[in-house]
């Protein structure tokens, strides 16, 4: 994508949008395009070369969600490009012209926002270039451009049978002077060739042969390995260090002090780990985090949730307190949830090669953000972005783990490389990533609801007591959005129901552990509380769980269609003996989902088994159906895993778990059958990656009630809690 620019100009379209086209030595590149009345320009979205290849920029990062294929698919469709001739290029710099429209143009891949954020801009870019190609061919042939078709990277004049490849068109002498007589018209859905088609993912062959290269796999000449011994408790510092035995370890090169630990740099990972074992470190003993144990944290948050101190309103309609006072009957309950760990299968790794002057570096890292990885590097080295050469590696899972403003793994790689004057790969072992990771926060939620004369939900008050995730992991963003924390509160807006007097508020509590976004963010616990609580109310008033939701969804036909669909999916399948089903309606952002789970219970061990999940999802236009199914299936399994097993506990500031033997996640033999229905429509695409998991926990809790007549209001539903509920 870096052919020298020979010529460029701006083309002003009648719509007020702007496209700038650059002729390069190699062909034509759309260097700028702005739609929707913004003046932002973008560079290099797409390039057509004379050899008829099409090169499309991938502005997000790939962590398994599939947008590396899905985003270019959108542009290629509008361009009428031959998909077989399309190459995809990872954006490896913090170039905000390509920033995520859903995140204020930050290069940030999170919130299931890639397709929904970039959909419009990619379509406009593809359509604009397509029209320019068509116009240029029309000039060449002296025919009306309306008489031309475009298909698979060719312009065709059906009347005369003439055709030209896009590569030939951009080689025409007059191409750069082509005027754009009219705003590019986007295709209507019946003309889509790639949008809505299950195009095979481009990354899958390499991921099936061991050839995909992750940050953990990067090897550069002269590279050393480092592992870091970190303080077992956040905030403590090194007060004494004896590294003699470490330095005497075979292949250990150096021991380096870091902001929150000690790094052992060695020729091999084996030597670094062996040297790290032999470090003798004295830690300070003054951190406030030593006072915190997770059970006490949840108790404290619960008191805050139950208290009267007003929180920050997340969504407010009518007057919730007045509505509750006027209600025919009211209900209340408290729900809690534990810390949870990302458990992405690739632990953390970052490689840095710092230049001799200490002010420039090449880095290889798998993160969800070019912007904050670049910023981490410039902050650590005290330099400017032009001195940073970034390589965004495909990630062995993201799930929110790799989103921070200051990425300490990348920071440590830079500091180690600077000290060693060689490239260094910093590796986090699995225990490092669990003990020193950052979690979905512990949360307590107080819910109150009132029903009217007809038994419909009329008032709702949801208090979510937990720290602000954004304030901790990205203070810059917090300054822009406070006091509204979407990471903490997502889902509590409950926008799919029509409840006239409504208040969801964030009761911000003290942070007592490291916290980060986690798949589904707030919806992973707010939907648990809300949907289990609604089930309690429906049961109390004797109304069917599905009908109870329908009664507050008369303005939401897309939502009720999902309930109808999932009911139909399960109707013909009798419930197996000894099992029960539970329903929940949730989603993520603008995506709605209705789901039913079927569970059984081992009453001796307390183990719940989820056997079957049926889920209907409306995410608008689906760009790549098979990949969307894979994402929903994966989200469902994530939901089952987190509903049943996943719990991080903390004792006196130390994380108690260290590996998969004491932080269990779902295995093959516990995976339910999953049946997914995707609503078919051409509405604006909405979130997929996090739409599958939020409804699972409440559906499981509701099924547990159906099976046992007992409620568990603490996530996850572990065997000890099950046995406690049955006792």
């Amino acid at each position, binding site marked *: 994508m870096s052919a020298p620019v020979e010529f460029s100009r701006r083309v002003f379209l009648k719509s007020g949008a702007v496209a700038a086209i650059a002729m390069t030595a190699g062909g034509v590149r759309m260097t700028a395009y702005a739609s929707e009345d913004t003046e932002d320009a973008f560079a290099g979205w797409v390039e057509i070369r004379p050899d008829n290849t099409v090169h499309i920029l991938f502005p997000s990062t790939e962590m398994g969600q599939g947008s590396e294929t899905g985003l270019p698919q959108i542009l290629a469709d509008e361009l009428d490009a031959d998909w077989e001739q399309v190459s995809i290029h990872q954006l490896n710099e913090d170039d905000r012209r390509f920033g995520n429209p859903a995140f204020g143009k930050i290069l940030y891949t999170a919130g299931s926002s890639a397709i929904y954020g970039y959909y419009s801009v990619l379509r406009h870019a593809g359509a604009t270039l397509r029209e320019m190609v068509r116009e240029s061919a029309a000039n060449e042939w002296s025919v009306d451009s309306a008489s031309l078709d475009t298909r698979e990277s060719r312009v065709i004049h059906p009347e005369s049978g003439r055709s030209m490849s896009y590569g030939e068109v951009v080689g025409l002498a007059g191409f750069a002077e082509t005027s754009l007589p009219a705003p590019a018209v986007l295709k209507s859905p019946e003309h889509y060739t790639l949008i809505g088609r299950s195009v095979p993912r481009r990354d899958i062959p390499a991921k099936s042969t061991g050839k995909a290269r992750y940050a953990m796999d990067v090897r550069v000449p002269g590279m050393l390995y480092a592992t870091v011994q970190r303080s077992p408790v956040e905030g403590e510092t090194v007060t004494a260090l004896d590294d003699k035995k470490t330095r005497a370890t075979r292949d250990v090169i150096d021991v380096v002090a870091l902001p929150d630990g000690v790094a052992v740099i060695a020729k091999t990972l*084996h030597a670094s780990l062996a040297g790290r074992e032999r470090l003798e470190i004295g830690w300070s003993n003054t951190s406030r985090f030593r006072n915190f144990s997770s059970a006490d944290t949840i108790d404290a948050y619960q008191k805050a949730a139950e208290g009267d101190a007003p929180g920050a309103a997340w969504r407010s309609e009518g007057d919730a307190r007045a509505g509750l006072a006027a209600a025919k009957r009211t209900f209340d309950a408290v729900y809690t949830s534990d810390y949870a760990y990302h458990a992405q*299968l690739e632990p953390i790794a970052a490689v840095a090669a710092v230049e001799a002057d200490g002010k420039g570096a090449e880095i290889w890292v798998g993160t969800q953000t070019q912007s904050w990885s670049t910023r981490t590097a410039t902050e650590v080295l005290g330099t400017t972005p032009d001195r940073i050469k970034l390589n965004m590696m495909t990630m062995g*899972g*993201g799930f929110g783990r790799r989103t921070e403003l200051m990425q300490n793994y990348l920071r440590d790689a830079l500091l180690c490389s600077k000290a060693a004057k060689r490239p260094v790969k910093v590796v986090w072992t699995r225990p490092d990533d669990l003990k020193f990771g950052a979690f979905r926060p512990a949360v307590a939620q107080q819910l109150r609801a009132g029903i009217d004369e007809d038994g419909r939900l009329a008032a709702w008050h949801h208090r979510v007591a937990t720290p602000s995730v954004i304030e901790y992991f990205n203070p810059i963003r917090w300054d822009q959005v406070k006091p509204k924390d979407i990471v903490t509160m997502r889902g509590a807006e409950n926008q799919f129901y029509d409840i006239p007097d409504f208040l969801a508020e964030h009761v911000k509590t003290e942070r007592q552990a490291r916290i980060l976004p986690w798949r589904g963010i707030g919806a992973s616990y707010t939907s648990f509380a809300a949907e289990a609580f609604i089930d309690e109310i429906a049961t109390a008033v004797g109304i069917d769980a599905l009908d109870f939701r329908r009664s507050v969804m008369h303005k939401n036909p897309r939502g009720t269609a999902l309930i109808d669909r999932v009911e139909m999916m399960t109707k013909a399948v009798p419930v197996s003996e000894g099992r029960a089903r539970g329903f929940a309606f949730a989603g993520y952002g603008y995506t709605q989902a209705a789901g039913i789970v079927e569970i059984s219970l081992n009453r001796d061990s307390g183990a719940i088994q989820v056997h079957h999940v049926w889920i209907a999802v409306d995410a608008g236009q689906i760009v790549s159906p098979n990949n969307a199914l894979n994402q929903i299936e994966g989200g469902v399994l994530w939901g089952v895993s987190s509903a049943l097993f996943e719990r991080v506990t903390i004792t006196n500031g130390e994380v108690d778990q260290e590996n998969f033997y004491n932080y269990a996640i779902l295995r093959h033999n516990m995976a339910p059958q999953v049946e997914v229905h995707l609503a078919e429509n051409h509405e604006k695409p909405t979130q997929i990656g996090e739409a599958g998991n939020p409804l699972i926990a409440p559906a499981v809790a509701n099924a547990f009630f159906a099976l046992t007549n007992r409620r568990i209001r603490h996530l996850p539903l572990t065997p000890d809690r099950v046995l406690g509920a049955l006792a």
Partner: protein
Amino acid sequence: MISFVLNGERVETEADPDTLLLFFLREELGLTGTKYGCGAAMCGACMVHLEGGPAFSCQMPLAAVAGRSITTIEGLSDQGDHPLQKAWIEEQVPQCGYCQSGQIMRAAALLDSNPSPSEEEIRSSMSTNLCRCGTYNRIVKAVQRAASEMSS
């Protein structure tokens, strides 16, 4: 000096005999298809074949593989076209992909010993291998597809 057979070729090394096979493969030989996931035989991302059977390379010091035969994902097929690899692509199994080398190696060992496993046998055998993205059900389909191709 330790020597062993790797993907059909003899390897000799002076490396520390305590070095884990996993790290030796990845760092010394550049065979990074075999992954580090947990270091504790709990996730299966490091799975290779030892004398044709499934083995956790994160648990094997080089000393333990002396004189023995190891196959990694890079040696499973000549062109990445083992029936399982084709089935993985056909079923569009991987998401992040980090676990999939280990999954495929585990599945290949299963089909070697049991050419037509039932769904339950597949799930049970594959339970040594974690997938955080949640591709388990697609893995089952892909193993069934490969088993059917290999038996026809």
